[in-house]
């Protein structure tokens, strides 16, 4: 039942007969067979607290006192509606990126090609904008759909190779990022170079080719789009037959196939869905933040997407929450860089601390520790 027998290198070997005079507590590790939801959440929360404490200590050590840090967080993110607005603007594409990754991960497809899919999404959306495809009043919707299509096309190859030939998707999706990047460079240095400024990015989108403003704070429609998408995916994953069958498949694909679950179909749907949402991420940045396709709009999103999906436990609502904190971290990081001169690498280090703590906390879900008095 448990497959940990061979791999449990963490077992402490306890001496047969330690000196009887000293009282000593020794840990005895036992493999857990089941983990209650409450324990899971408890361990997760504690690991986040530990990570936060370590991060604060690390910043203090690099010259940012905890009080300064607190003030910085408050002013950057929460001091004014405007500040909160800029956090939320930053949050929206991160949510979509996290969702794109989480969809694939739920189907056990390790999509490491988010950036490539974002680029294709932006290229397709820009093509709609540049060649004026479709009516002006529906242009932005056409762009969004085109972006989904672009992302889907980019993931279709790796998906097909995985399904048909069993070729590892980590390699194919990852390498296609570079192909997509060179395609992007080709476009912005070549046919799509901005005719106005001659800089290597596309011309600016017209107003009707941008995500409309909400008229509240400085927010545009990217945020409702992201949250709406998260809610839809939450429903699909938690309350629909599709989500139930995905759970069944990821627990035992062979059994799912044997009882007639359309395993291949559902996997393909999840892969294409992930690609489509990846393309949409590119659109959300191009049409919601930059108003054009720039040559590095995507950078860093691959890592952020994986991080957000992982910390959000592939749960759509978890993704929303983690993306929000991620946006705060990125903005606070920027201002710390400016005002305290801490390197940006520190922000990445903090992200790594969170990942490491959460990943390491799995130990407590795998093992139960019995503290015993040594005989």
């Amino acid at each position, binding site marked *: 039942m448990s497959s940990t027998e061979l791999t*449990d290198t963490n*077992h*402490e070997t306890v001496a047969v007969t330690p000196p009887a005079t000293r009282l000593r507590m020794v840990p005895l590790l036992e493999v857990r067979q*089941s983990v209650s939801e409450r324990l899971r959440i408890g361990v997760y929360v504690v690991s986040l607290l530990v990570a936060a404490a370590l991060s604060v200590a690390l910043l203090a050590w690099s010259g940012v006192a905890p009080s300064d840090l607190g003030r910085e967080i408050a002013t950057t993110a929460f001091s004014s509606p405007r500040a909160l607005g800029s956090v939320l603007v930053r949050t929206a594409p991160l949510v979509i990126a996290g969702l794109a990754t989480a969809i694939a991960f739920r189907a056990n497809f390790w999509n490491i090609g988010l950036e490539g899919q974002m680029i294709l999404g932006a290229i397709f959306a820009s093509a709609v904008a540049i060649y004026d495809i479709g009516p002006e009043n529906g242009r932005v919707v056409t762009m969004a759909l085109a972006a989904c299509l672009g992302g889907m096309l980019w993931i279709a190859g790796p998906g097909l190779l995985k399904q048909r030939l069993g070729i590892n998707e980590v390699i194919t999706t990852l390498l296609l990022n570079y192909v997509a990047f060179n395609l992007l460079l080709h476009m912005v240095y070549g046919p799509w170079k901005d005719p106005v400024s001659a800089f290597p990015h596309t011309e600016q989108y017209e107003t009707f080719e941008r995500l409309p403003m909400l008229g509240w704070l400085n927010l545009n429609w990217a945020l409702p789009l992201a949250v709406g998408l998260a809610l839809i995916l939450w429903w699909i994953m938690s309350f*629909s*037959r599709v989500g*139930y069958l995905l759970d069944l498949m990821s627990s035992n694909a062979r059994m799912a196939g044997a009882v*007639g679950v359309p395993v291949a179909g559902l996997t393909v749907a999840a892969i294409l869905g992930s690609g489509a949402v990846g393309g949409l991420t590119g659109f959300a940045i191009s049409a919601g933040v930059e108003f054009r396709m720039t040559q590095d709009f995507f950078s860093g999103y691959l890592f952020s997407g994986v991080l957000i999906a992982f910390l959000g436990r592939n749960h759509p609502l978890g993704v929303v929450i983690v993306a929000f904190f991620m946006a705060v971290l990125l903005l606070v990081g920027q201002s710390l860089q400016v005002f305290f001169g801490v390197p940006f690498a520190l922000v990445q280090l903090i992200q790594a601390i969170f990942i490491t703590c959460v990943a390491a906390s799995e130990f407590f879900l795998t093992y139960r520790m*019995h503290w015993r008095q040594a005989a």
Partner: protein
Amino acid sequence: MTDTLTLSSVSKSFGGFRALDTVDFVARAGEVHALLGENGAGKSTLMNIACGLYAPDEGHVAIDGKTVRISGARDAAARGIGMVHQHFKLVPAFSVLENIMLFNPGRSPAEVAGKAQDLARQMGFEISLSDKAGTLGVAEQQRIEILKVLVAGARIIILDEPTAVLSPEEGRMLMGLVRKLAEAGSAVILVTHKLHEALHHSDRITVMRGGRKISETTPEGMDPASLTTLIVGEQIIEKPQLSKAVGPIEVELENVTLGGEAGRKGLVDVSFRVRRGEIYGVAGVSGNGQNELSAAIMGLSFPSSGRIGMNGLGDVSKRGPGYRRRHGLGCIPVDRYSHGLAGRISVTDNYAVNGAMAGAYGGWGFFKRGLAQAAAREAVAAYDVQGVRSLGQRAGLLSGGNAQKLVIAREFEGAPRVVLAHSPSRGLDVRAGAAVHERLRAARDRGAAVILISDDLDEIMLLSDRIGVLNSGRLTREFKAPAERGDIGAAMVSHE
């Protein structure tokens, strides 16, 4: 004799459920000690404590009279305890030698290889250390598992239901090996549901029931009936009952040919017909095409030629499992943990899949868990699945017999008109096995066509109305029940 392994007043609870209640157990060097008991009696749990996978809540473990705390398999190995689990833990992509090394870290390959070869020779079998573990048959894999713990220096060897996956012939060979190990001075603990193994191949028998040890005895003066009474507390006698009413043909295989997996024979020109209201038994030594036959009927692999007809549907040989199941096929697969259940998700979710696919819990956009849960609750009660403390509990925690009952509950829901049962009582205790047989008879009596594939000739003889013999991928003979056991046995092994 010395008491090599002593478990004293060991108790263990899982979330409020007392799986072991003050159990005493002693194994001595030089003896084969059979551990018997119903499904869920606590045998595996007790042995997991002995090999350090679980920590006891109360009581203690002693080796050679000294109390020890064992912390994990590695530590157990260092103390001379080795357990071969029912589900093998070999790494398929590794060679035999690499697998043995993995369990014996810190030793040189040459040393391990030499020792493994020596031990194998002493035990009387040949091994090729460079073969990939994944390419070996179950019996060979099991020998590697045993070698693994022997190389580590095990003197206390625990085998958890080792013969459940072996053919009768392989089982006999293992019993010979077990005797040799005991003669060489080891204490061998044999967890089993097969009474004849306890009666003919052990020196002492411990029986558990409901988490308690209820008896310790010797095989002398015991017979299958008295041992059964000891294990389940009642007498269980199964008698053959032939079909009363046979109807039209429900399922038909015509010249089905199917390539086997690498090195296997597959199926060659297999033809047979099964009518409503009859049980068609497929007898044969395992490895003669049983897995391929069952995959072809389930829809997991498509024959390269020939047809499989289902009444009213025509040829279904190129249809997947979903289609066949929608139209009335129910399957009890041979390995319930690979094709029958998803261990990491709940009992409800395992049960609900048919209903979900049929739309009983809403369309594609819905999965009404409440409805699924109610259905699962009813099924768990109707099929007497025990050990379900909550419907949200992971299915992997059910004991073998109860896991099988859950599979049957799901497969028999909706009264399938064709039932495939492949070694359905494997790993089950006498009572649970009899209950499964009763379910199969009941399915037949309500008019289903039942195909029973089993390498246990007793089971075939007990249930079948007609019997086909599978030999080297061909269906070589057919018999009508009641048939002579000897004739069937001869057909199973003949080399025409």
